[in-house]
């Protein structure tokens, strides 16, 4: 189990090396990586503010729920904060489970909850100034399926 909230970049390959290994009951590993996208062509960077202390606590709670519900063998959540350029990795989750359905569902559950329940706030930096990214109703709605 690994939960990290950090400014530094992470290496997906290093994180996933050996993840879920050494256990005969792990048949499926799913990873998700979120990357800074520029939809408008007018963004220079994305800034992530967070709430130190609560962030780790909120993520740990979400992870605990996922582990129990899908009997996960292992989980990784890494979420960055600070200023990130276009194409940089923002965060990743990985899940290791017996079957693929559980690994996929747990990863999607973690993502849906991290989006709306972990205390991060995104701000876009562009040539015309900065603006806070508004939460989407769709992200709140996504929680209803769990």
């Amino acid at each position: 189990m690994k939960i990290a909230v950090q400014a530094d970049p992470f290496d997906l390959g290093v994180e996933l090396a050996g993840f879920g290994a050494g256990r005969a009951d792990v048949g499926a590993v799913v990873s998700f990586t979120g990357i800074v996208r520029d939809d408008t062509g007018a963004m220079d960077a994305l800034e992530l503010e967070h709430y130190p202390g609560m962030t780790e606590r909120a993520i740990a709670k979400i992870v605990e729920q996922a582990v129990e519900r899908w009997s996960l063998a292992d989980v990784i959540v890494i979420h960055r904060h600070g200023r990130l350029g276009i194409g940089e990795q923002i965060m990743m989750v990985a899940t290791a489970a017996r079957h693929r359905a559980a690994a996929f569902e747990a990863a999607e559950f973690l993502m849906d909850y991290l989006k709306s329940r972990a205390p991060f706030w995104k701000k876009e930096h562009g040539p015309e100034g900065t603006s806070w990214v508004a939460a989407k109703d769709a992200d709140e709605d996504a929680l209803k399926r769990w």
Partner: protein
Amino acid sequence: MVEVLYFAWVRERIGLPREKVETSAATVAELVEELKAREPRYEAAFADLSALRVALDQDLAEFDAPIEGVREVAFFPPMTGG
């Protein structure tokens, strides 16, 4: 005395990240009313509570939650992580 924290645009509107507040409020909503009465920048930050979230000692809570015994109250917009 509670420690009050502000994040994202709430922090920007109020102009500081945290402050100690002497309060006799029983609930979060009452605390918000006390803060709004202070200055226009608080009034502006708390104008629309439906656009805000609150955490009590680092757990999400409702605005009608009691704050007795709470050390840390945080106000912020809906999260946009992931």
